[in-house]
């Protein structure tokens, strides 16, 4: 049964390989359906796993039957399973959207997509820091390739920046890993935590240096100021299904921050405990502000959505920086919500752009969209969700994060920034919406209708928003459960930690 933990990694890989080989390879239809069906199966599997993990507690899977810390272990605790579920849910929607025709605009769309899912899931599941690096690279290289899908100058240009920056990031990741290995002598995250607790004084500053280096790596992935510059161009130039999938990529950085800085540099880390917070809080908040300014400043809708991603990243990083169980819980809920809505908005932006003639998604007057009601409703739901307006999931997220901040000075900062910036977001979105839908030039509507599969995909992602509200009770509890595993209380917490190898469940 527990072999299933590998499914989120191996199933996409297998799918990708099958798609690359005959007899699937030759037929676009077969490629599509294999990809879609595999994603659906994956979703079912991970949902089952999540429930099981919820019931039975965290599970550890020793790849190659080598126990931690010597081998690589996969960890399925609530947090990682939530992230994997989120990815699978998102991927299914994005695949469906892509299968409506975008996949044929370049080669290897489906294999690359599946590889990227593989990388993302791997990054979430692994309990080994170097293995995390490897999966980061898997997802990155797949993202590079997907970014240039369908071609075009903008994509090439964005890709160049994106690739070079991330290569630098990877180099820093390796420096950090080497420093941590060279001082702690291990690569397993929990084992690192155990070693940090017993660190000789002479090595403390070295470990700190390595730990802080990781901040750069993860902050670059998460797109936190001043390392966020790659994001707007990248996300806004990627083709729609790709951009939708990319919505989860920044969250990997956030996830890694959460994971590493609660486990390795958690409460037991002595002098190094909580060292990330003071660095992350100001940049997180600044990112929110910058993202909101970007929302106002954007000239096209995709850029606007990309800046919305920045806002959510800033919010998440600020929450992570506060390093309490409550903020972590809020961050987890907010991650799920913001990822899905950002993805949906990227797809909606594409639909709008397709229907507005030459104007595309630029915020200027253009032809009327040919499906105003459908797109209008989609836009409204998406915009309200992302702006944190009730009754959609954004407001639960907002309530949760505002409530989670306990310490007065950070409360003042975070509240005022979050609230003022949500106003900016509302202003920006209402401006964008009224321009896109209402500032019509010419009498006839644009051509092109959304394909049924595209509509389905957008609805699939959007439906999450009301569901996250209706079942907000269970969902918030799930988030809290996941957060509680990150902040185990009591003595000897490291060993009782969710990632602890002692809890090994291996067949």
């Amino acid at each position, binding site marked *: 049964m527990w072999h299933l933990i*590998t499914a989120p990694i191996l199933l996409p890989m297998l799918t990708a*390989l099958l798609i*690359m080989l005959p007899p699937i390879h030759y037929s676009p239809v077969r490629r599509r359906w294999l990809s879609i069906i595999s994603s659906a199966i994956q979703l079912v599997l991970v949902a089952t796993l999540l429930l099981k993990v919820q019931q039975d507690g965290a599970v550890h*899977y020793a790849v*190659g*039957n080598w126990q931690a810390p010597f081998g*690589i272990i996969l960890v399925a605790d609530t947090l990682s399973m939530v992230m994997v579920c989120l990815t699978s849910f998102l991927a299914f929607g994005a695949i469906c959207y892509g299968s409506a025709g975008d996949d044929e605009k370049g*080669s*290897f769309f489906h*294999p*690359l997509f599946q590889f990227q899912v*593989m990388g993302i899931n791997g990054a979430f599941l692994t309990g080994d820091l*170097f*293995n995390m690096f*490897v999966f980061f*690279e*898997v997802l990155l290289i*797949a993202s*590079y*390739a997907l970014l*240039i899908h369908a*071609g075009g100058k903008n994509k090439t240009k964005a890709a160049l*920046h994106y690739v070079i920056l991330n290569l630098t990031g990877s180099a820093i990741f390796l*420096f950090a890993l080497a420093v941590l290995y*060279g001082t702690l*002598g291990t*690569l397993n995250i929990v084992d690192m935590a155990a070693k940090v607790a017993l660190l000789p004084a002479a090595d403390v*500053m*070295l470990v*700190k*240096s390595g730990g*802080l*280096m990781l901040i750069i790596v993860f902050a*670059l992935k998460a797109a936190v100021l*001043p*390392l966020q510059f*790659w994001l707007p161009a990248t996300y806004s130039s990627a083709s729609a299904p790709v951009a939708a999938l990319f919505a989860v990529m920044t969250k990997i950085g956030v996830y890694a921050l959460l994971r590493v800085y609660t486990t390795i540099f958690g409460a037991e880390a002595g002098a190094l405990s909580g060292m990330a917070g003071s660095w992350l809080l100001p940049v997180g908040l600044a990112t929110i502000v910058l993202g909101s300014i970007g929302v*106002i*400043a954007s000239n096209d809708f995709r850029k606007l959505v990309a800046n919305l991603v920045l806002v959510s990243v800033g919010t998440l990083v600020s929450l992570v920086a506060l390093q309490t169980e409550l903020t972590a*819980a809020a961050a987890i809920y907010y991650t799920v919500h913001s990822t899905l809505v950002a993805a949906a908005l990227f797809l909606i932006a594409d639909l709008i752009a397709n229907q507005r003639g030459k104007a595309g998604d630029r915020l200027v007057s253009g032809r009327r969209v040919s499906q105003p009601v459908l797109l209008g409703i989609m836009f409204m739901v998406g915009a309200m969700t992302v702006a944190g*307006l*009730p*009754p959609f999931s954004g*407001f*639960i997220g907002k309530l*949760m994060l*505002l*409530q989670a901040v306990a310490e007065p000075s950070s409360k003042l900062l975070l509240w005022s920034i979050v*609230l003022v910036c949500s*106003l900016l977001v*509302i*202003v920006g979105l*209402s*401006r964008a919406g*009224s321009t896109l839908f*209402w500032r019509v030039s010419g009498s006839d509507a644009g051509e092109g209708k959304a394909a049924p599969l595209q509509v389905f995909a957008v609805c699939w992602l959007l439906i999450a928003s009301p569901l996250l509200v209706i079942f*907000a*009770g269970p969902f*918030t509890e799930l988030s809290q459960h996941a957060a509680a595993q990150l902040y185990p209380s009591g003595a000897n917490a490291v060993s009782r930690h969710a990632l602890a190898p002692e809890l090994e469940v291996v*067949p």
Partner: protein
Amino acid sequence: MTLLWILLLPMLGSLIPIITAKRQRSACALATAVAPAVALVLLVLNAKPIFAGETLRFFYAWVPLLGLDITIHLDGLAFLFSLLILGIGLLIILYARYYLSERDSMPRFYAYLMLFMTAMLGIVLSGNLLQLWLFWELTSISSFLLISFWWHKPEARRGARMALTVTAAGGLALLAAFLLIGEIVGSYDLQQVLLSVDLIKQHSWYPILLVLFLLGCFTKSAQFPFHFWLPNAMTAPTPVSAYLHSATMVKAGIFLLARFYPVLSGSELWFVLVSVTGLITLLVGAYLALFKHDLKGLLAYSTISHLGLITLLFGMGTDLAAVAGIFHIINHATFKASLFMAAGIIDHESGSRDMRKLNGLWQFMPITATLAMVAAAAMAGVPLLNGFLSKEMFFGETLNQQLLGSLSWVIPVLATLAGVFSVAYSLRFIHDVFFNGQPKGLSKTPKEPPRYMRVPVEFLVALCILVGIFPVYLIGDLLDAAALAVLAGDVPEYSLAIWHGFNLPLLMSALALLGGTLIYVYRKHLFEFQNTLPDVDALNSFERGVKQFAARCHRFYQWLDNGSLQRYMTLVLLSFVVLAGLPLLDLATLWGGRQELPIDAVNATGAAMLLIAAFATVLWHRKRLIALLMISVVGLMVSIAFTRFSAPDLALTQLSVEVVTIILLMLALFFLPHKTPKQSESSRVVRDLSIASMVGVVVGSLSYALMTRPFTSISDFFIANAKTGGGGTNVVNVILVDFRGFDTLGEITVLGIASLGIFKLLTRIPLFKPSSDGEGRPWALQRNSLLLSTVAQSLLPLAIMVSIYIFFRGHNMPGGGFIAGLITAVAIILQYIAQGVDWVKERMNVEYQRVVAIGLMIALLTGAGSWLFNRPFLTSWFAHFNVPLLGDIELASAIAFDLGVYITVVGSTLLILANLGKMTTSHRPVHKEAI
């Protein structure tokens, strides 16, 4: 549960218009009306306990973690408001049926309206602060939709956005206030909050909380200085104005003042903020109303003024004032709704709302005119109408307050002044529209509206009169119940009688009537004076402001994010220097106490060569091919360093990767300029040099600090278990294919993906094909060399044999699938170099991406094979067999895994290089001459 249905019915009702969209208009309207009608009945059925002072509640735990529950809290205040919302809502539905033209989408309108009704009901019925906020924001959204109903008009879009911006801002402030309250009280339950008066008022957060709360109320209720959005919301269809901007939405802020009156009022701050705001709003609204030529504009400002009046009442802090406030809410709703509807009828039937065009309508629509006049009289506070009663109470209360200390007399004076203007604009409404000569330039001849369009007006006007005459019988209980809720039990004695004898308030009323008439008569002078003042168009200024702000944001964003990778890189690197470097400053000494190895001459030479070559690369980076040669030396030296320091596997890998990389860079160089123009300014070079040296110093120091520290790691386990557990003596290789085989699987996946990505990049690439090299020398015409071709052919089997050798020994000796794969790939690339793409393709027509897939598949399936034995993924297996003659043969799953690696590497490398090579094969200048 009935309580929940009051809320749920309109909610579900918002779907009905969409379902019945295809039906006739009347059917659609009727169907839409069903849900609120039933809800109204349900509400009224609960009247008895409410009038008895009870509070009905419904509770459902929704999000316990957040304190967000579904709680319906029906008390007198909620009852009163629900009654207004549902009652007037029903009238609006009827009215809108006739108001909307054929071109307007009625289902959309009704859907929005019902949505709005739900939101409003949600606010007034909420028993949970967060739930209340939810509905509060919903009103902003639905009003946005309603105001922008005619979205093709620019001013409708802008007005809607402005309204949304202002109310949303208030909403966010309100949220903050509620969250603070929730944290103070420890619960978001309304009842709980209402019981925690002292807790809240004595808390240090109270002032900020109150300000935030009032921001929410004032923005929604269009209080000065947030009043400007309301007149611009008049671009909405008139039923919307009648409903939202007179009876309901703008009252939400007032409702909130009333709702939280028991807990938040009674402080100095409350009095000052609320009453002063109310007073200014009252005056400003009344004054400005007079000058509006647009009928709806006049009504909008009058609404602002009346809302100010109510706010002032709640600000005064006396119980009686609060009662008067509640009373005026009811009265204002009735007369203002009917006035808006009348204005709508006039607009609808005459085609204009401009009072300069509208004149003498009395003769065309006498019934409507009468209704409008009665309602306007009520607004002016003419006796025997409901407006008079509450205004009288208001005047009375202004006399009873001591808000401003010795200056308190200012308030009644200003109140009277406001009354004066109120009378004046009411008069204008009556006189300027229905009398005052003949209509000018109307597009159509005015006439009475359809019968049923007038019914709502008639009903409301009747109420104005009836309440004006029989206040106690009609609304006594209602007002009592509401006051009970607002005042939390201590309802003062008050009298709703028409006649209280000659007293000061009566005098003020009389003064107002008289003064108003005078002002109206001499309005010309006032108009002239007003015309000399600069015309402030809120909509345009708002729009301009937003645009300017957006432009400024845009400029800032562009300034920050100028699209320069160098800037981004600089920031990344500086972050690195700061974050990685700062801890090192705290290090007493870099040296960690471990004895250094001695330096010998050879190593020093190697290091010198490395440094020289690296430096030369930098120095000559603009002469690209030379730089390439230099970096080859660096690579070679790194490989030799690996050899020297006991890492033969690394040396082998580095060497083979090195060559492929150089070939790749050379391929790239063909398509790129061969020289870099000098571009960097010297200041920039200095800057980059300093950044680079900082990074270099940090990295170098770190590595020195690491190397000189004593060290224990998990590696002893690998050395101890490589042979017994992994079946190989080359520990590095066993780590790669066994202990950490999962990394390797990921790593070859990266390689495979990279090759796919490169294939994508090369598809339909519009290449530059330079016809000469960097110095302008044309390329040699001879494609291949005889000697090279001949030797390359002979080397291929040899190289493949070497790679097989390297492959098989990998598990026990330096080598392995990756290196073997690269050797094979390089051997095949040599064929490409020596013979050309076509030649190779003739002999080996393989789709390399398939090779990649097969390789990865082998690795994957090898890993999955362990499931058959119920072992975790990638669990290795090996066994020794003693075969006669051949001796001891080892079979290991690791070999199958390594085979996957090998095939993937061969496939990827060739996919990358051969595809790139293919790009140029055609259209190259080749010597065509025979032989």
